[in-house]
C-alpha cells in the first residue's frame, strides 16, 4: 500500500482522494498491523462483512471502484494493479524468498508471479480521469457502469446472504456453523476469490507469520481441510494468467 499512498499524495492536490478498505472478518485484529505500517493520510477503513462485495460487486483483491465528485460510479469494481515499477527497481523472486520458506509458499509465490496485470494502462487511465474528469474516455456512462458490474443472479444474491451469515457465525465463535455457510457461498458465487480466500484464511493450515496466507490443507492433517478447493489448487486449475480478468479501457 505505500505505493498507493505515494500516488494519493501526488494526485490529492488535483481533487483526488484514496479510500482503502480492508476486507476481513477479523477486522482490526486482521488489518491493524498492515494499516499502522502504511500510516495512511487518507481514510482507511475496515469491512468485516465484505460490504464492498455486496454493494459494489468486489470479487477479488486488490480491486478498485472510481467515484466522481457527484457521487456517481464511473468505473465499477475491477482489478487494481499497483503502479508500474521502474525496471531498475524490480527484484527477482529468489531474492525475496527466505531460505526456510515452506515448499507450498515457494509454489504459491511462483504462481503469484504468473498473475498478469495491465498496470501501465490502468494507471495511465487513472491519471487521465483525474485530469479530465467526465471528459476522460475512461469515465464510463451510468449504463455502462451497471452493465460492467458483476452479474448477479438470484443464486449469487443468495450466496451473499450465506457469506454474511457465515461471517456473523464466525464472529460469534461458531466456526463449524460458519464453515457450512462459507461452503454455500463458494458454491453460489464461484467467481468470488475473496469469499474463498476469506474462509481459507480462517483455517489453521499453518502457524507463524504466514498462517493466513497458507490458504490450504495443513501438511500434518490434510484430510481436516473443510473446503473443496484451496488457493494453490484453484489457481493451478484455472491458470494463474486467468486469475484477474483483463483490464478493459
Amino acid at each position: 500500500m505505500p505505493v498507493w499512498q505515494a500516488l494519493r499524495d501526488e494526485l490529492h492536490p488535483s481533487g483526488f482522494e484514496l479510500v482503502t478498505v480492508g476486507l476481513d472478518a477479523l477486522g482490526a485484529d486482521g488489518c491493524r498491523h498492515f494499516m499502522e505500517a502504511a500510516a495512511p493520510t487518507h481514510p482507511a477503513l475496515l469491512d468485516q462483512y465484505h460490504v464492498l462485495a455486496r454493494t459494489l460487486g468486489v470479487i477479488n483483491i486488490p480491486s478498485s471502484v472510481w467515484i466522481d465528485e457527484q457521487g456517481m460510479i464511473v468505473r465499477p469494481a475491477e482489478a487494481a494493479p499497483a503502479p508500474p515499477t521502474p525496471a531498475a527497481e524490480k527484484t527477482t523472486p529468489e531474492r525475496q524468498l527466505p531460505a526456510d520458506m515452506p515448499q507450498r509458499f515457494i509454489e504459491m509465490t511462483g504462481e503469484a508471479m504468473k498473475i498478469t496485470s495491465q498496470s501501465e494502462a490502468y494507471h495511465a487511465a487513472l491519471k487521465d480521469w483525474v485530469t479530465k474528469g467526465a471528459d476522460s474516455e475512461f469515465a464510463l456512462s451510468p449504463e455502462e457502469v451497471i452493465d460492467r458490474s458483476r452479474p448477479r443472479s438470484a443464486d449469487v444474491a443468495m450466496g451473499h446472504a450465506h457469506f454474511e451469515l457465515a461471517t456473523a457465525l464466525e464472529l460469534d465463535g461458531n466456526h463449524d456453523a460458519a464453515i457450512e455457510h462459507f461452503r454455500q457461498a463458494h458454491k453460489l458465487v464461484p467467481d468470488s476469490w475473496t469469499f474463498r480466500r476469506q474462509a481459507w484464511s480462517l483455517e489453521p493450515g499453518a502457524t507463524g507469520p504466514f498462517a493466513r496466507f497458507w490458504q490450504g490443507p495443513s501438511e500434518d492433517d490434510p484430510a481436516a481441510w473443510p473446503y473443496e478447493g484451496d488457493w494453490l489448487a484453484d489457481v493451478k486449475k484455472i491458470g494463474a494468467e486467468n486469475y484477474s480478468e483483463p483490464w478493459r479501457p
Partner: protein
Amino acid sequence: MILRGASSDTAKFEQATGWTFKPEGACKGDVCIPLSEPPGETIDALELAQAMGLPVVTHADGELIAIGPESVGAHALTTAEAPDIRLPDLDGNEFALRSLLGQKILVYAWAPY
C-alpha cells in the same frame, strides 16, 4: 445485512440494503418494488425481505438472520449512484463515503490474507 431477530429499525434497513421507502414502494435508482403498504418506523425485516424478493438465510430458528442483496437488475449495481457505504476506521469511528462528495474517489479493496 445481519439481524438478530426479525425486528429492524426502518432507517437502518434502508441504509444497509440501499433501498429507500417512497410512496411508490421500495426504490433504488430508477427501480421501484411496489409494496402493499408503506413501512412504519420499525419493520419485520423477514416479511419485508420476502415482499421485496431479497434472499434470506437464517440460523438457530431465526435468531440470526442474513438478508442478501437484490438480483432484480441481474447485476451487482442497480444504479451507478454510489451506495451509502459507512464503515469504521481502526479506532471504530464510522466513516461515510458520501462525506467525500466533491472529490474524485478511488475505493481500494485489499485484504490481509
